[in-house]
């Protein structure tokens, strides 16, 4: 018999996320990993500005709310001051890839020994569905009402591909949470990203392709399908960098 328990690291609070939003899944995966690695008591999480702004209420570890985009800088401060702690940021696409791009790139370049969970749902959810740096070409949002025109506002940013060009980061993987198989892979990736930090390996980022049924204007089920149809073709899943694995291969 499988008993479905709430992970210890997940607070017993009702979340504010919309019906069908995949934030809840990712929160749970992060909490499960904290439990499995036994690190909750020394973990400090950094919440961003965006839909997960109140993530500090949902995890039982110590939590810090950061300014928009600045979570990797805040995490840098925490980790440098408390090197034995486990520090993760939980950021959306606007936070990480737009306003906080400099902090993202430089914390990766420094190979800060932190874990970043990056939720890419191709839209600004919190403010009601505006264009994100990861909004797909042609995708309709409140601020791209005629569809994202790449000639006017440029192309989406592929964060894992971009960061993989840096020498700094230890581990970059893109996963999705739109079906059971993908969720299981996402769990594995998140666990590895935390394990890397426990092992002192350095900057680990997991990009999680997520859905936003509310702002995509879809049913939750349709939104999960849209990930397969539109998102994953543009943002292919997989490992973009794994320094340890690469070293082992060359041995």
């Amino acid at each position, binding site marked *: 018999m499988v008993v479905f328990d709430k992970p210890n690291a997940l607070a017993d609070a009702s979340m504010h996320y919309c019906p069908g939003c995949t934030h809840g899944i990712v929160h749970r995966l992060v909490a499960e990993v904290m439990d499995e690695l036994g690190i909750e008591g020394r973990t400090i999480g950094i919440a961003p500005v965006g839909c997960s702004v109140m993530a500090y209420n949902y995890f*039982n570890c110590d939590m810090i709310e950061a300014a928009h985009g600045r979570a990797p800088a805040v995490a*840098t*401060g925490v980790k440098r001051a408390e090197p034995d702690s486990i520090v993760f940021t939980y950021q959306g696409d606007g936070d990480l890839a737009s306003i906080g791009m400099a902090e993202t790139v430089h914390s990766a370049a420094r190979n800060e020994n932190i874990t970043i969970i990056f939720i890419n749902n191709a839209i600004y959810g919190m403010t009601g569905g505006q264009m994100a740096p990861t909004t797909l070409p042609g995708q309709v949002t409140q601020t791209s009402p005629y569809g994202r025109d790449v000639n006017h506002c440029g192309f989406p940013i592929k964060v894992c591909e971009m960061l993989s060009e840096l020498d700094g980061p230890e581990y970059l993987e893109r996963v999705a949470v739109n079906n059971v198989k993908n969720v299981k892979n996402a769990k594995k990736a998140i666990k590895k990203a935390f394990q890397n930090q426990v092992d002192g390996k350095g900057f680990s980022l997991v990009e999680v392709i997520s859905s936003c049924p509310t702002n995509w204007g879809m049913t939750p089920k349709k939104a999960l399908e849209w990930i397969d149809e539109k998102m994953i073709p543009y943002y292919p899943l997989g490992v973009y960098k794994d320094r340890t694995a690469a070293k082992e291969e060359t041995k």
Partner: protein
Amino acid sequence: MADKVLMKGNEAIAEAAIIAGCKHYFGYPITPQTEIAAYMAKRMPKIGGVFLQAESEIAAINMVYGVAATGHRVMTSSSSPGISLKGEGLSYLAGADLPSLIVNVQRGGPGLGGIQPSQSDYFQATKGGAHGDFHMIVLAPASVQEMADLTVKGFELADKYRMTSMILADGTMGQMMEPVALDYEIAPAPEKPWATVGTKMAREHNIVNSLFLAPEELERVNFERYERYAAIKENETMYEEYMMEDADICVAAFGIAARVAKNAINEARKQGIKVGLIRPITLWPFPEAPFKKAADKVKAVVSVELSMGQMIEDIRLATECKVPVSLCNRAGGMIPSPEQVLEAIKAANNGGAK
């Protein structure tokens, strides 16, 4: 007593910070305060501390925010344009009630401005400096010794009141060398049960946060914060009075301007003019009491500033417009000469003050 050594103001700040137990410094190069970063880069690795050159002023202040959340003493330093970039972080530090020390070695502005000394960030420093209702404790050194002393004091006040202390210096103070003695007895920092250092599974989780979506709650934390501010006004205001006992004219100046003013006051006294100086050491809280008292005794106040006139507004409030307050100023990186101040004193003495 420790031997006096000649130190640059910027270096005195850095060494005093280390003595005060600051083991974490984050910054971004900008003239005229880069000596602080250079000093920290050299010293921090030797004392098991952290110096990190951040990718931007914004990142630096947020690294400060992260360390402050863990309860360790932490600082950053910059000069005017860089402080503007840190504004966001200053507001978040205030909103989350985190202690930290920020140094602004001011240069002329606005915009990119220049690199010569200025006091034109007075408004920015004393009136908040970014969005929301908040204050920083603003300390204005007028000697290299005070650069060091007020750094130590700044850390202590920051911890005591869980807020940001700012050293508001200028390029002259940062670059000049004077004898300085660094012998301090550093009291242990207070317990910080609110710090986010991991629950160790032994307590409820701590949250460092400035988001309060319920207006009633946000109002409550603002009122509570201002009760703390009231206590600071009551207990921590600092100023120096020089020859004010029998003064007919009161000169008001802080930092380098006060040094220049003293020369002018000494000369004016030689010429028989009874003039004194009130030098605010805390710019916030502003020393209202001595100005209020002076307003009943002197016939005019002269505010000497390296700006277009900023502190003068606080002086007018504190003196309740009982006496005329005139401005003697230079701007853009220029410094008033003692002769200019003397002329302003004479004009005020002759009733020529506006």
